[in-house]
């Protein structure tokens, strides 16, 4: 051990360097966000609570097929309607259930949805779906999906029942539904 090393070990200057670092952090701006009062706005592509619009849904079951863990459950029946002279078959959605407690938010259902805009989407910015009992509380049927009962919407987000725009959930969707589909919509809801 040379004399320099000896002095170095006698006066541990690196300890003071370390204390300088932590002392500097003392005056930094704090990273904490005081959650219930302040919330971080999620990014645009953040996948949160499901948005579902039964008006746009064409009952193609593609989302249920795309789901890797089969948590989307759809049943339907066909009704025959007379439109003028012709018989017309209509599919009516009886149940559209999502077991959100098992969802891993992969977004494949949204990707599979063929309608434009999407009938099921996850970019709702909303994540406060905490419940005390997960089996009942996180099981969403089509009525709950429409009005988000039990879910606290992120401030500023439009509820799906009011016509949330999947592309930007803070806005209402401008496009009016086509007139011919009104009967389907009424029959379903």
């Amino acid at each position: 051990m040379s004399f320099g090393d000896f002095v170095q070990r006698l006066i541990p200057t690196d300890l003071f360097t370390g204390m300088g670092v932590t002392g500097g952090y003392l005056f930094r701006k704090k990273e904490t966000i005081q959650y219930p009062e302040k919330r971080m706005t999620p990014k645009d592509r953040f996948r949160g609570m499901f948005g579902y619009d039964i008006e746009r849904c064409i009952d193609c079951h593609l989302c249920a097929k795309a789901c890797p863990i089969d948590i989307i459950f759809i049943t339907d029946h066909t009704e025959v309607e007379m439109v003028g002279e012709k018989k017309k078959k209509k599919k009516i959605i009886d149940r559209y259930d999502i077991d959100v407690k098992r969802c891993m938010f992969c977004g494949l259902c949204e990707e599979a949805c063929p309608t434009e805009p999407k009938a099921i989407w996850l970019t709702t910015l909303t994540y406060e779906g905490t419940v005390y009992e997960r089996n009942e509380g996180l099981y969403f049927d089509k009525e709950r999906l429409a009005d988000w009962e039990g879910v606290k919407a992120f401030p500023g987000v439009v509820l799906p029942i009011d016509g949330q725009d999947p592309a930007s959930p803070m806005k209402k969707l401008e496009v009016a539904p086509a007139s011919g589909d009104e009967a389907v919509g009424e029959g379903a809801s």
Partner: protein
Amino acid sequence: MSDPIMVYIGIPLIKGIVVLGVLLLTVAYLTFAERKFLGYMQVRLGPNRVGPKGWLQPIADGLKLFTKEDLIPGRAERFVFMLAPILLFAPAILVWAVIPFGESFTIGGVEIQPFLADINIGILFVLAVSTIGVYGIILAGWASNNKFSLMGGLRSAAQMISYEVPMGFAVASVLLMAGTLSLVGIVDAQRDYGLWFIFPGILGFGIFFVCGVAETNRNPFDLPEAEAELVAGFHTEYSGMKFAFFYLAEYANMLVVSSLAVILFFGGWLRPFPNVEFLAFLDLVPPFLWYAGKVLAFIFVFIWFRGTFPRYRFDQLMQIGWKWLLPLSLANVMLVALGVLLLKG
């Protein structure tokens, strides 16, 4: 007011109550300060929910610990298990009997000395009494009937013995300079000398402070309660009020070590350069505030250490104690003795 009952019982009683009250309140708020400062050093906010800005947090903590269930493990040695927290806490409080806070002053014609007792072996008393606290830790570790606790107690024993020796030598260097064991006398000696003892005794101070950190089981020498290895070390099995005693004792010991460092090396309640007339305006600050400010600065350094340094390994701890601090402290005593001999003749 010269009534002997008042002089011999009344005033000491009042002083004792004041010292105890201020001490316990300070200790309670030190826990808050520690959590707050640690939080700030980790770029978070620390406790801020109870009361305005979190200032009622210590009270909430105290209430919680008071009302908690007091568990005693089934096979623990009941009597020793209950004795150990008292054995650790009582010396930490008892030491304050001899620690002076300021100069004597007069209220209503009665001279009041801001300390409970100025005994002529003050520093010896402090060292002797504070060492009893080690028994609390060892017995707590043994009586818990838990391997983690036992390891913590054993480590504590080895650590205390290792670091008591260089600490004693570091104190001895101050005693050589001051020529008295009385804590008031040491501060007066610094006034007569015209300098705080830190300037001639910087090496001694370094050794004293490192040993003090080790004696109080604080980071980076917190091996007796090393969280990562020993769960909580000697107080693993303790809960409720008994745990609170350990906690309070740790902070009270921090205060004792800080106070000793201030009295021995930083001139107690004296302002910087106590004999320089040019700095006389500093006397506007009352002596007690000088003392308290210095002590709190040391407490902050304790917390700063905890926010910065990782824990030493046990062999490193022993190595620092025996291979570095002990020879250094011996050399320091010799140097100081030589200096005193040459300067004072």
